[in-house]
């Protein structure tokens, strides 16, 4: 019998140890696995390599792990908006690998899809090219980029079912679907967990085969980085 449902974040992150490589979904603070991040902070797991598009802000998201110096290396596309991150980077406490955003997304997808490498034009002629194979296709130059995989992928979805099928909401989808594919073990935290059969199969974004553990999260803050509104 398939049993993917765990009771909470504490049970979900069981097996995550020091020095492991984790993928964490989200773009900025949108669609991040808040419950699991809080639990990683609480457990004090250290030496982590974190693959995530961004690094949170000082007091939220991955910034919480940075504050406790639990991250050894970040693999990201954009890491602004975080003073503690800057401090650790300048002092040499933190390693950073910056990757073009589309290349990051495709390396994750490739990792989950069993494609060890692919050619992309992003970064040709820049320092991103250093050490990489360059090849021309139809007169345009491309870089060889390799897949990314991880010990654990931690994703956040809007709705999920007991078989691990996931539906994301709006732009909170972002990197979550590719990461769900690329983790050896994928943990999904969802706002609403329902019995298998309640979600419309036509609407599933991540099929349950990619998800090993799932739980309904609590107390989502969903902090907004740039609250922009217009007047009525």
């Amino acid at each position: 019998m398939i049993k993917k449902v765990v009771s909470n974040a504490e049970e979900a992150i069981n097996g995550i140890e020091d020095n492991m490589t984790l993928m964490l979904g989200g773009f900025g603070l949108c669609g991040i696995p808040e419950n699991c991040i809080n639990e990683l902070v609480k457990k004090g797991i250290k030496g982590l390599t974190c693959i995530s598009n961004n690094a949170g802000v000082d007091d939220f998201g991955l910034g919480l792990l940075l504050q406790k110096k639990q991250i050894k290396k970040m693999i990201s596309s954009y890491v602004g908006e975080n003073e503690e991150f800057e401090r650790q980077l300048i002092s040499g406490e933190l390693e950073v690998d910056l990757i073009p955003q589309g290349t990051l997304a495709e390396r994750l997808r490739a990792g989950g899809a069993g494609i060890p490498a692919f050619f992309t034009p992003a970064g040709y002629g820049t320092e991103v090219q250093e050490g990489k194979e360059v090849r021309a296709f139809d007169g345009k130059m491309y870089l060889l980029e390799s897949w990314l995989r991880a010990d654990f992928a931690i994703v956040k979805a809007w709705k999920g079912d007991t078989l691990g099928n996931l539906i994301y909401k709006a732009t909170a989808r972002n990197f979550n679907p590719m990461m769900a594919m690329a983790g050896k073990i994928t943990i999904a935290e969802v706002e609403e967990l329902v019995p298998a059969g309640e979600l419309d199969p036509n609407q599933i974004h991540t099929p349950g085969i990619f998800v090993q553990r799932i739980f309904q999260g609590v107390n989502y803050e969903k902090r907004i980085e740039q609250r922009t509104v217009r007047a009525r």
Partner: protein
Amino acid sequence: MLDKTGIAKRIAQEIKDGYYVNLGIGIPTLVANHIPKGIDVILQSENGLLGMGPFPFEDEVDPDCINAGKQTVTTLPGSSFFDSALSFAMIRGEHVDLTILGAMEVSEDGDIANWKIPGKLIKGMGGAMDLVASAKHIIVAMQHVNKAGESKLLPMCALPLTGVKCVKRIVTELAVIDVTPIGFKLIERAPGVTVEYIIASTKGKLLVEGDIPEMELD
């Protein structure tokens, strides 16, 4: 001389009916406010939204609906959401018609630098390298000179590159300039700006042919 809104207004004239457009952060974002009447344009936000709408009213704010600048936004009739891999498939696959972005430097070959200043903190390139490597048409919106008064239109970029030979057109507070196989070419002057002033403000090779018209802005 134009202000930022003026630059955005002039760039808005470049947008054709039916275009799918990706707007970068800063001046490019302002372009959305000046799209001419009767022109249908669909904005792509690389975090996973096609058909980006205006900022929400206070009671519509949804933390799950943001743009690439992490600002809260809305959808429009016909909008769609998707993941980051699909988003960059739209971009690299040349399905996006026009990319408008800012720059620190542009070279007369069309190289662009806009992500890193050595010695200063590196925030990352985000989606800029993917965008400039693949867009069918790239317009740069920027100031003609930097804060130190030095030209940002150069024979070669001094800063680390974001992409090579990709910029097609530059709109600054002074001029509209194209990148051609033989260097920069002056297309239009901003209201009240002389050709001589533009030449003096441009360090790269600048081709000036015949009478240069003044921009028409409403």
